[in-house]
């Protein structure tokens, strides 16, 4: 019969943790408000609305208005969590994010729900793979991509206290718990697995896959370090430089275009050091996705644990 199957870990939709933590924060601090675009359900704000009807401002299907209203609230002393499907929040309201939030230094927490290719079959209009490239280019905007429910909770709490313009990518595609309840530390990569041959720098949905890849690579005698880079901007450049010194190559993995996201950010550090190391950038290379489920699309674009392992092994076997 078939070979024994490894136990499949439980997986989670990070929006649930996000919503629970936001409601918990709102109970503690009346400055916490939520602003959304007809997305009470898809942003998991039903409970928040039930408890705090006055503090849930639903502007309807109007993302530019939503971000502007969030900025007005932030400039009046509130801590707005502005929630909408990531493609529409970031794409439709990009100028509001730039001018009203980042440039005006209004401490709005932009919550990009269901990012990446979470809306699989709904297609590229509903995918948010450009967000990291767009937002990383904006001065003064923090870009945070939690990897699992615990880190999502921790990042929500950080954002509420930080009072800085920030973008949180809140995942819908189910992921296993990987951070072991280590609190989110803004601007710092966390080493989830140490290794000496190759470093994989991953974010969001890619982190658990990177860990699986590292476990598989170990069986083939290659030691892979896994960094959870949950802050994309500003980037933990020291962690990258350390990886350059202590391992022979770097693989980046992100559910986003490689044009300007995590891979590009890491590469910008690598190539400006005196002794660059070889890199592989996994992600989506300026392509619109074909039709398919999220899992199918991640496989289609080479974003599985096997793909990450293969990239790591290729670098491990490259002569320095």
């Amino acid at each position, binding site marked *: 019969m078939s070979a024994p199957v490894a136990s499949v870990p439980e997986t989670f939709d990070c929006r649930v943790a996000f919503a629970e933590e936001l409601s918990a924060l709102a109970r503690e601090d009346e400055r916490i*408000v939520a*602003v959304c675009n007809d997305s009470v359900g898809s942003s998991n704000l039903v409970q928040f609305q039930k408890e705090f009807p*006055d*503090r849930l*401002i639903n*502007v*309807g299907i*109007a993302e*530019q*208005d*939503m*971000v*502007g*209203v*969030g*900025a*007005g*609230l*932030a*400039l*009046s*002393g*509130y801590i*707005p969590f502005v929630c909408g499907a990531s493609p529409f929040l970031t794409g439709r309201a990009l*100028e*509001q994010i730039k*001018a*009203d939030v980042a*440039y*005006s*230094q*209004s401490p709005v927490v932009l919550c990009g729900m269901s990012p990446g290719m979470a809306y699989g079959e709904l297609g590229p209009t509903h995918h948010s793979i450009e967000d990291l490239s767009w937002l990383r280019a904006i001065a003064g905007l923090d870009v945070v991509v939690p990897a699992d429910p615990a880190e999502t909770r921790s990042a929500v709490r950080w954002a509420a206290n930080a009072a800085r313009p920030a973008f949180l990518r809140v995942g819908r595609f189910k992921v296993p718990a990987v951070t072991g309840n280590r609190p989110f530390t803004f601007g710092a990569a966390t080493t989830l697995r140490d290794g000496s041959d190759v470093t994989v720098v991953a974010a969001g949905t890619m982190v658990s896959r990177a860990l699986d890849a590292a476990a598989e690579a170990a069986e083939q005698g290659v030691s892979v370090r896994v960094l959870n880079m949950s802050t994309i901007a500003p980037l933990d450049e020291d962690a990258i430089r350390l990886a350059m010194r202590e391992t022979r190559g770097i693989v980046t993995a992100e559910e986003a275009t490689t044009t300007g996201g995590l891979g590009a950010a890491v590469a910008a550090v690598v190539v400006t050091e005196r002794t660059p190391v070889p890199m592989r950038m996994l992600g989506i290379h300026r392509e619109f996705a074909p039709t398919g489920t999220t899992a199918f699309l991640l496989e289609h674009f080479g974003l599985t644990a096997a793909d990450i392992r293969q990239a790591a092994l290729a670098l491990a076997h490259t002569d320095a």
Partner: protein
Amino acid sequence: MLVADPGTAAAWRRFRQEFSDSGPERRREMLRERANQSRTTDLHMIGRAGLGHVGGDMSVLDILTTLFFSVLRVDPEKPDWADRDRFVLSKGHTAGALYATLAAAGFFPTAELDTFAGPLSALNGHPNRVKVPGVETNTGPLGHGLPVSVGMAVAARLSSSSRHVYVVLGDGELQEGSNWEAAMTAGHRHLTNLTAVVDRNRLQQGARTEETNTLDPLDDKFRAFGWDVLEVDGHDHLALYDAFTAPRGERPTCVIANTTKGRGVSFMEDRVEWHHKVPSAEQIVAASAELAR
């Protein structure tokens, strides 16, 4: 961040006191004179900088002067006072007019106006709240001020504060769809603490608004979005004052202020090329003489 000029702020306070103690004729004269002084200041700023939006500045200055010198509950020496009224200049390209007004009220020293648009000046071509006291949000790209003002009005209501939010919109700017998203929200939420003032000079950068993308009937548009609408002569200070301070009903208020681009300078009035043309030294002298009359 620039800081207040206490002497000018004190003079502004005296002005406000005298205004409230005076009858209509004196009030009209006070605001007219103050606005024309700011016009002259602004012309010189633009002349020095070699750039600016002179037509719109002249158009909006009676609105700005009436707000800052007779209506807004603000304190130039406490620009962060939580319960201050909020003022947002959505048509951020008329920053010169705003700077001239804020300096005249003592929010920062008038000497700073000499740096307008110069290297590293706090006084950018569009206003920056991080650098200039009295500026509530950074504007410049059009269609941003109204949504932010709606957020401020929602916040005031959540805080049970009586502060009022005033936002000045250009008329051409109303071609941006984001305004109508926000207008819908303000109407839906019955934001009685919000007043949008439209500087209706009927000219945009390249041509007349009605030749570019029709705005009329503008009053009906706002009414249809759930607003009360008042229409006034945007250069009649007392009409503006009455509109800004009239008791509010159950809806947000839109004041359509009919204005003339380039107002006060005969050779600029209602001429599209003066959107951002820079007057020569001779023209500034001639314009200042007209404004001093």
